[in-house]
């Protein structure tokens, strides 16, 4: 009985494979190219911007050339890898990918899979130390945001908006100590502080990216310090907690607060004056150009092996939202989808990575 079962299973499986591979051969000639966007979750607005960016890129191509497929991994490393494998298994090499790795180490496995399958792809945000596209033929490019620049930009923006520009007392709310994003943003802050010697840092605390902790820390700060001009926050979530604490003491809008990330509530906070500025990570730009790089390699427009390290690994700029730029940001990014010239692959490169 067991044997019969086994034979039946093998038979069904082989039929399936035969059928699938047969379809593959057909699809490579007829079917449109599948663009896989592998990201964390469909419920996150920011991650959905990748998809919108990828779609905006597809819209610049002749109709029927390519389709976008979302691969949300719901915060699971395994699901991310399995979804990518499944997509490649069903479409063969008629696929390109844009990947935001769930955790940095996941990227190594993905690189191996794509290399074996001959699938061109690009990545965003984190890679483990020493793992770069330069070692691979099909991993076209890797992009990230420049945390140092973000930390610097929001600091300068805050300092310049003090009553006497460049003079004031600030408090520093760090994220999670030793976390890469926090470390980089702090470097940026220190660079800004060197340029503005009349800014005094009263205290420096870490609130682990948490709204709640930032709230409690700020409350205590407010009992200790009478004169505070600004609170530099390493992320929007913490900034929202800081604003909440200030509001309870009637100090909101009097003490300037910065954020980074472009969380919807924080962007609204910039508009109504709770926050002085935040930096929105531009998902449209990241997703659109990420796909454009992979597509260019797929169509032979660029040859990754002949490109320099700086061309394959670079930082992109976020969008600094302030009271002044809010209306522009709203018009271009909230009320409509930004459109870029995807033929100009050097456009998103703000700075090559070192």
């Amino acid at each position, binding site marked *: 009985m067991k044997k019969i079962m086994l034979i039946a299973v093998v038979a069904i499986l082989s039929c399936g494979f035969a059928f699938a591979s047969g379809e593959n051969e057909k699809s490579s000639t007829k079917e449109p190219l599948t663009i896989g966007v592998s990201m964390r*979750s469909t*419920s*996150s*607005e920011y991650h959905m911007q990748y998809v919108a960016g990828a779609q905006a890129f597809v819209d610049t191509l002749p109709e029927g050339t390519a389709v976008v497929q979302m691969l949300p991994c719901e915060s699971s490393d395994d699901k991310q890898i399995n979804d990518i494998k499944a997509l490649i298994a069903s479409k063969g090499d008629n696929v390109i990918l844009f990947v935001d790795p769930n955790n940095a180490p996941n990227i190594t496995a993905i690189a191996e899979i794509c290399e074996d399958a001959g699938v061109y792809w690009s990545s965003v945000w984190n890679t483990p130390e020493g793992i770069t596209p330069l070692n691979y033929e099909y991993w076209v490019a890797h992009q990230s945001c420049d945390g140092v620049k973000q930390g610097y930009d929001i600091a300068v923006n805050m300092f310049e908006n003090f009553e006497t520009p460049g003079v004031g007392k600030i408090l520093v709310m*760090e994220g999670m*100590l030793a976390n890469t994003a926090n470390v980089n943003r702090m470097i940026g802050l220190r660079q800004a502080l060197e340029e503005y010697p009349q800014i005094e840092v009263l*205290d*420096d*605390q*870490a609130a682990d990216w*948490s*709204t*709640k*902790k930032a*709230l*409690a*820390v700020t*409350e*205590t*700060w*407010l*009992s*200790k*310090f009478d004169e505070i001009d600004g609170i530099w926050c390493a992320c929007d*979530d913490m900034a*929202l*907690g800081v604003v*909440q604490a200030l*509001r*309870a003491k*009637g100090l909101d809008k009097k003490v300037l607060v910065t954020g980074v990330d472009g969380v*919807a*509530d924080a962007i*609204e906070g910039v508009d109504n004056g709770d926050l002085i500025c935040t930096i929105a990570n531009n998902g449209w730009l990241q997703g659109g150009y990420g796909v454009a790089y992979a597509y260019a390699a797929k169509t032979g427009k660029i040859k990754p092996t002949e490109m320099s390290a700086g061309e394959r690994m670079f930082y992109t700029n976020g969008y600094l939202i302030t009271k002044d730029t809010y209306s522009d940001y709203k018009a271009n990014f909230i009320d409509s989808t930004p459109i870029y010239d995807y033929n100009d692959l050097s456009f998103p490169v703000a700075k090559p990575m070192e």
Partner: protein
Amino acid sequence: MNTQNGKSQIALEFSQEMERINRKTRLINTMPLIILFVLVFIMSVVAEGFFSLYNFQTILSQLSIMLVMSMGLTFVILIGSIDLSGEGLGGFAGAVTSLLVLNGKNTNNFGIWGILFVIVAVTLIGILSGVIHVKGKMPSFMVTYSISSIMAGFAVLSYKGQPAMIKYPFFTQLSQGTFIGIPILTWISIIVFCIAYILQTRTKFGTYLFAIGDNENIVRNTGINIDLVKVKVFAWSAFCIGLAGVMGAVRIGRGVVDIGVGIVFPAITAVVVGGTSLSGGKGGVVNSLIGALIVTIINNGLILLGVSTYIQAAVQGIIIIAAVALSVEHDRKGICK
């Protein structure tokens, strides 16, 4: 005759020994209060800005959620159990509340009814974990920890990754309002404390808490339904968690599951530092009030002192171990697990 003397001698020594233990117990019972005074004194001297009306308001407002949490946990710990469901359940309460009142994400506007609904729902979940604990004969920490994970999952699902900003004006009044200089949230926690105090001292429920923690057999032999008392305890604890979750949402103004993160262990610490024994039967809500003050003042004082974040957590840990060492009875015979 010699034996009679021997008898009196031993009996005398025995009663001296008992008296010595009693004296020690009384000293240990007052220890948390002494620690609190010492801490206030030290902080007033060394921490700039500590001894000010403004900072006392801050301490009271930071105390509020922990106090509410610890009122629930005190009863649970008094009967010798533990409730770890606070993280998930509190986050769930906060997140769902933000979605039910006026908010920036959906069109709901149930106001006060939304809050009541959340607290009732969370209390029912507490009853459920109590029933699973007593009827399923499962350890309370396992049951409540699982409930926590489940509810944390539901909380994240409820707002699908993007938390709602609360726009309900009543919440703004709650978070900013004060009454005779004390924040409204703190008043709420004081009311919860009073209710807990009355439950503990003025009802038979309170009497049974101590008895169950001390010796369950005596209680059972007296013909009391222990299971029912325990389920009530978990319901009360969940009620407090629900309220703490709503208060968390009021304080930070956003419905994130983050509201629940890290609210359980400081509250357990407060209960234990206050002198309530983890094995049950000893302590009470007054102890927990003192414990909550101690824990809050440590956090507040360390930030005021400008202690580097890198070593703050370590200093906190050391102070808490020292406080527990002073305020907990160490019976040589007792096995600590």
